């Protein structure tokens, strides 16, 4: 019962978050001096042309009215313009991309697979690698293994993502020519090619992120191993494996899980640099292109999508918390 209340209240909170994010985005764009109707006006543009474009796209009403229209569209669909050329955006309608003639929801939907493939694959690699290496370093503290791993982790943490991406692609795709230079192959089309095209982005991202987890895990592990209850477990005669795996790891994973949730949320919604460098049509790329062309409906859609992902992941992280540390259970 307590869990059900917890879930329900968190879910309501999530919806509120999305509403506020949408609201803030609207206000921000209203404040922005750029005029999206200008794009639809043509060259040469005239005051009449601007006015016609604004009316058609629904920008000739005050911003709070626009916001309400947007919310209304989510439940009941929206129609832009009149007559036989009117555009019908069926419910749920998260806006219409006038520049590409498609509704925002399908546009994002078509790109999710790419972003998820890049992010989830890399995340799987980096969490295993990061935590594994961190534990190893902690157990072999002071040895060569520890030093080398931490050195590599330092390098990974200190390098900007765009630099790592460019170096990776220059060395492996061009100079050595062992992986494809760009492009994405859908999983359903050819799983082998899908993985092959993703190998480089996966490892570049993994190198950057694993470093954080390796350091974090190692630090937490060393602290935990000094705790009383670990000494007790060892004194009881448990194998080192049980001590580490059963008892220490639980405590260690707490901060790791927190950071992982935040990391993954941000990564899923915005693998901008990776997608740009590796020529993939994912959600991050959509965001950057929409910013460049001031495609407001798409910007709004991607912002909401990113907010949704982050809140859902944070929610899951909180659940994991409750599972890992009863003392930290909420509600």
């Amino acid at each position, binding site marked *: 019962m307590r869990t059900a209340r917890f879930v329900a209240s968190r879910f309501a909170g999530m919806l509120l978050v999305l509403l506020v994010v949408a609201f803030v985005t609207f206000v921000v764009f209203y404040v*922005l*001096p*750029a*005029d*999206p109707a*200008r*794009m*639809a*006006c*043509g*060259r*040469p*543009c*005239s*005051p*009449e*042309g*601007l006015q*016609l*474009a604004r*009316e*058609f796209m629904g920008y000739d009403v005050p911003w709070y009215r626009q916001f309400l229209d947007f919310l209304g569209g989510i439940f009941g669909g929206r129609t*832009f*313009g*009149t*007559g*036989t*050329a*009117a555009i019908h955006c069926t419910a749920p309608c998260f806006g219409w991309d006038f*520049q*590409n*003639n*498609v509704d925002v929801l399908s546009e994002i939907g078509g*790109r999710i697979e790419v972003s998820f493939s890049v992010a989830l694959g890399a995340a799987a690699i980096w969490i295993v690698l990061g935590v594994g290496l961190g534990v190893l370093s902690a157990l072999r503290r002071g040895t060569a293994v520890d030093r080398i791993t931490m*050195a*590599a982790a*330092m*390098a990974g943490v200190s*390098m900007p993502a765009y630099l790592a991406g*460019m*170096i990776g*692609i*220059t*060395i492996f795709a*061009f*100079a*050595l020519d062992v992986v494809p*230079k*760009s492009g994405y192959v859908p999983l359903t089309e050819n799983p082998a090619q899908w993985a092959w095209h993703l190998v480089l982005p996966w490892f570049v991202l993994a190198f950057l992120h694993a470093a954080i987890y390796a350091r974090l895990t190692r630090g937490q592990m060393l602290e935990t191993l000094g705790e009383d209850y670990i000494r007790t477990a060892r004194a009881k005669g448990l194998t080192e494996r049980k001590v580490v795996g059963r008892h220490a790891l639980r405590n260690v994973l707490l901060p790791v899980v927190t950071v992982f949730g935040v990391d993954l949320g941000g990564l899923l919604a915005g693998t901008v640099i990776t997608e740009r*460098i*590796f*020529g993939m*049509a994912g959600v991050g*790329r*959509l965001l950057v*292109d929409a*910013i*460049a*062309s*001031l495609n407001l409906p798409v910007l709004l859609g991607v912002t909401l999508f990113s907010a949704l992902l982050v809140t859902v992941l944070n929610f899951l992280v909180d659940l994991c918390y409750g599972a890992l540390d009863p003392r930290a259970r909420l509600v």
Partner: protein
Amino acid sequence: MKQLRFAAGVLAAVTLLTACGANDTPSGQGGTVKPGGNLVLLNDAPSITWDPAKSSNLVVTTLGLIHRRLTSWDVAPGKDTTIVPDLATDTGRPSDGGKTWTFTLKDGLKYADGTPIKAEDVKWGLERSFAPAFSGGLAYHKDLLSPGLAYKGPFDGGKELDTIQTPDAKTIVFHLARAYGDFNWVASTPAFSPVPKGKGAEANYGDHPVASGPYQLASYERGKSAKLTRNPNWSRDEDKTRLANPDTIDFELGQDTGVISKRLVDDTGKDRAAFGMTFASPAQLAQIQGNASAKSRLVTSESGALAYLSLNTQRSNLKNPKVRQAFQYAVDKAAFQVASAGSAQLAGDVATTLITPGLQGREQYDLYPAPPSGDPAKAKQLLAEAGFPNGLDGLVMATHNERGFPEKAAAIQASLARANIKVTIKPLDEDTYTSEVDTKGLSDYDLTLTSWQPDIPSANANIQPLFQSTEIGNGGYNESRYSNPEVDKLIAEAQATVDPAEAGKKWAALDKKILADSPVVPLIYTRNSFLHGSQVGDVQIGRFPAYVDYRKFGIIQ
């Protein structure tokens, strides 16, 4: 430890790359361009607009491959660009002093699906461009056919545009609101492509348009790719403007420009039949210059868009023409060339006129002779004469955020400082720029650094959009906010002149007259460079526009 690792990594990368570069050999071009083969076009833009009503494409590039218009352009290196017929039998017959234009369609024209192309289809395509759902493309015809945009398209109540008449299936007559000598040029813009009457009401018509040109759109995946295949109902015999050599054309969209450049420089495998649609950036040009094979596959235009510095004539400091003339001497155009592309040869010639080369009737002159690096002493003298012995301070220069403009602006800023003119740079992203500089009524900026390429090869398109007083604000491009009633009158007169030679003389005179007032400082005629694979041949750029003619290239076999 870590920095050694990093340095080692960098060293390794550099060594590998130099090793690769050492292998380059100039590509042998054994063979000539013949019909056939598959051409790959690499683009960084994520999408292409195939809907003619929404397109701002030039005649020589992408859209011209699937959509024909009433007239077209004859483009070749080393000569001015002239007008030729495309779907019509001639380049239009003006009457009534240039207020009425009549075109006759050729016989036997068919769409890709086999249905005949009729005059009413051209009318329908134009009517369609007035609908708000389909506006956004070139609109030079709109105000002439429906002043004040009173006509709102055929989809809301089925109204027709009565200023266009089609007495029979092959004749189309345009009744313009005022005399306009360049209407035959306007008839080459995308909106004049035929759309089967009654079709094209759906918003995504651009995903499957009906083709009248040598190719048709076989598939289009936004953000990814597009594929063109031959239009079986088009033949070279009745279309003298297009060669259409490749059998199929594949577009790869959304590519990173650095990766495009690397692929073309490497020239391996399928990339040998590829062409880069994007301009080569200065960094890429520097790399290409050092690679013999790539250098032989780089094509640079003769001339191009006018890069210029706009002086806001409505701001208090800049109201005095003498002050504005000082800017003509203060700027360092040589440094601007280097900041643009690394060398004067790749950047483009120093500009001293408003009309760009390649347009009929253009005259070369220089009202403010000075060495390419400028004449700061003369600038200071002019400022002193105008009452500013200590120079100017606190000026704001708005410019674009990308395409190298911030660096070019920095070069201009430094050169102006030599003449005691202190400027702060404000880089704006494209839409904010348009809104702040082109749309708003009041202005917060003193200078803008921008560039302008006419949409049609007419001096009219160089002068009217930038200097007519009606183009201030509301999305117009008169960024110098130049308002001179006499000039407005002369522009209207020149526009109404039907005889091209006479019109040319009037535009050349206007060019000099406006520049004497110094509302802008012409900088360079920007050259564009393009790279292609070793199997692509006949890659040519005419004097205007500064883009490769897609109608002419093909695969070497």
